[in-house]
């Protein structure tokens, strides 16, 4: 480990500063700089620097965090995940509300005597919001996973809500096969199809950034 191998210093520093709340780009820069310092200090220099202790690393983390973010208005996760996700969710909800207020008639599809309501204009508009969520996340240097979650947030919220409602339905009315079918159809209606539409819009923003490719 202490042979001055650059890759090892990088890995060592990367592990030590994993908890640093910085964008991936800023974090990579800190890793590159600190590992270069350790490499210089430990390869043929009389000014050898020993690896900082655990306590010193904690001090370094705190100090770097403080110096890089004096007043952190929003942390990295908020900027790259929560804010884009909430924006997408809000936009998709407003679009649905607008469509209902404007009086667009939903398309009714009957399956096993159960009517499913489809708002085609809403589904058609969802790719724009998927794109918005993924773009905002990408702009905040969000990782691929954050971009996908931000883009899919309306569908994911519906999935969570429906998953919570289903057990209540069974608890109150008892087990019904038709209820399960209805749940499956509602899942298609409010989660799967919207999810596809959102993902379609997000696709152009799901390419790995040069930093993530490196």
């Amino acid at each position: 480990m202490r042979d001055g191998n650059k890759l090892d210093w990088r890995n060592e520093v990367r592990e030590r500063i994993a908890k640093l709340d910085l964008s991936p780009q800023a974090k990579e820069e800190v890793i590159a700089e600190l590992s270069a310092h350790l490499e210089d200090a430990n390869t043929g220099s009389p000014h050898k620097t020993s690896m900082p202790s655990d306590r010193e690393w904690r001090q370094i983390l705190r100090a770097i965090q403080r110096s890089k973010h004096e007043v952190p208005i929003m942390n990295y996760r908020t900027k790259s995940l929560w804010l884009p996700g909430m924006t997408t969710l809000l936009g998709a909800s407003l679009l649905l509300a607008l469509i209902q207020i404007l009086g667009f008639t939903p398309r009714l599809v009957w399956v096993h005597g159960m009517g499913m309501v489809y708002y085609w204009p809403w589904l058609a508009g969802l790719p724009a919001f998927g794109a918005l969520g993924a773009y905002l996340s990408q702009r905040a240097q969000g990782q691929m996973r954050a971009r996908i979650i931000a883009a899919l947030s309306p569908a994911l919220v519906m999935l969570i809500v429906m998953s919570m409602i289903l057990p209540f339905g069974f608890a109150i009315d008892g087990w019904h096969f038709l209820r399960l079918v209805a749940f499956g159809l509602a899942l298609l209606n409010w989660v799967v199809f919207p999810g596809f539409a959102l993902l379609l819009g997000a696709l152009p923003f799901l390419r790995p950034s040069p930093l993530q490719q490196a």
Partner: protein
Amino acid sequence: MQSETHMTKRIRSKITRGSGEIAILSLLAEQPLYGFEIARQISERTGGALKFTLASLYPLLYEMEKRGWVEARWQANDAGRDRRYYRLTAAGRRQLAPLREEWRSFFQALDSLAGVSHA
């Protein structure tokens, strides 16, 4: 010997920090340097009296960068390895003169009180 009081630690920390700022700014006023070279030159030129560790150097450099006193960019060093070179900005240069004056006054005051000057 009694351990350092909180106040003593605070004073020591402020002196160390202040001396670090003026040392780095003075060095960068001569030429752009990267972190390890800054630490090496400060140690050599002060006969080891001032030493920077990883923990003390980089937070200070990042803070000075955020204040706009220095700017950094990656370039190859003499050995052809990419290093992040720090360069003094106009704002940093403006900061240097009052800092020097502050430290001069500080040493004069200390000298008149405790006769610490070697002259």
